[in-house]
């Protein structure tokens, strides 16, 4: 299939153009609706939505740390996946040079599986 390999900067232009198109569309719709749908302001409508009950206390008191733990694990496993990508890319090509590449990644994954089991046992993953 002879097709012209597009240069990275042309791809960036295409992506930026598409992003601008979507953004303009969103802003256009918001603008039209803000212009056409006149807002009749009254205090009841603009207050915090609490199923009709008056809001009590500040909206943002502290939350359980569970969300924070999940974010840390997400970050660490995301980095792990980042290392898997270049490995997966050249895995098939490097198979001729013997299984060294397979062994390298298995050590990398083994250490992280130890970490995963540690988290599992320490209860980082389960949700009360």
């Amino acid at each position, binding site marked *: 299939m002879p097709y012209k390999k597009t240069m990275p900067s042309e791809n960036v232009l295409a992506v930026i153009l598409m992003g601008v198109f979507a953004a303009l569309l969103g802003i256009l719709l918001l603008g039209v609706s803000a212009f056409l749908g006149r807002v009749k302001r009254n205090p009841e409508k603009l207050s915090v939505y609490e199923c009709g009950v008056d809001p009590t206390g500040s909206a943002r008191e502290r939350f359980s*740390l569970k969300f*924070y733990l999940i974010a*840390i694990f997400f*970050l*660490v496993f*995301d*980095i792990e996946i*980042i*290392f898997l990508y270049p490995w997966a890319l050249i895995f098939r090509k490097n198979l001729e040079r013997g299984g060294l590449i397979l062994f390298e990644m298995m050590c990398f994954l083994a250490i992280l599986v130890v970490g995963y089991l540690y988290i599992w046992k320490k209860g980082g993953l389960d949700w009360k």
Partner: protein
Amino acid sequence: MIGLTHYLMLSSILFSLGVLGVLLRRNLLIIFMSIELMLNSVNLAWVSIANFSNRLDGQIFVFFVITVAAAEAAVGLALIISIFRLKPTTHIDELNQLKG
């Protein structure tokens, strides 16, 4: 033409903005963000030198710098949270007792 000096000047501007952020601001989180900014400008310098010297080693270092920066951010923010639990403030000047 965009030469290497353009990129290195840009990364030095970003680096000094990060240093300014660390020095001027008293909020722990903003200091942490300016450290990420400094790391980011170092990455930019690495990649531009790698590109202009036609070698890939610079890109590998950036790969590892991003990994270390992310792991450091995770543990650093865990520290900030445990400090916040002792004393509900992220204002750096109030954290001057070693006790607790």
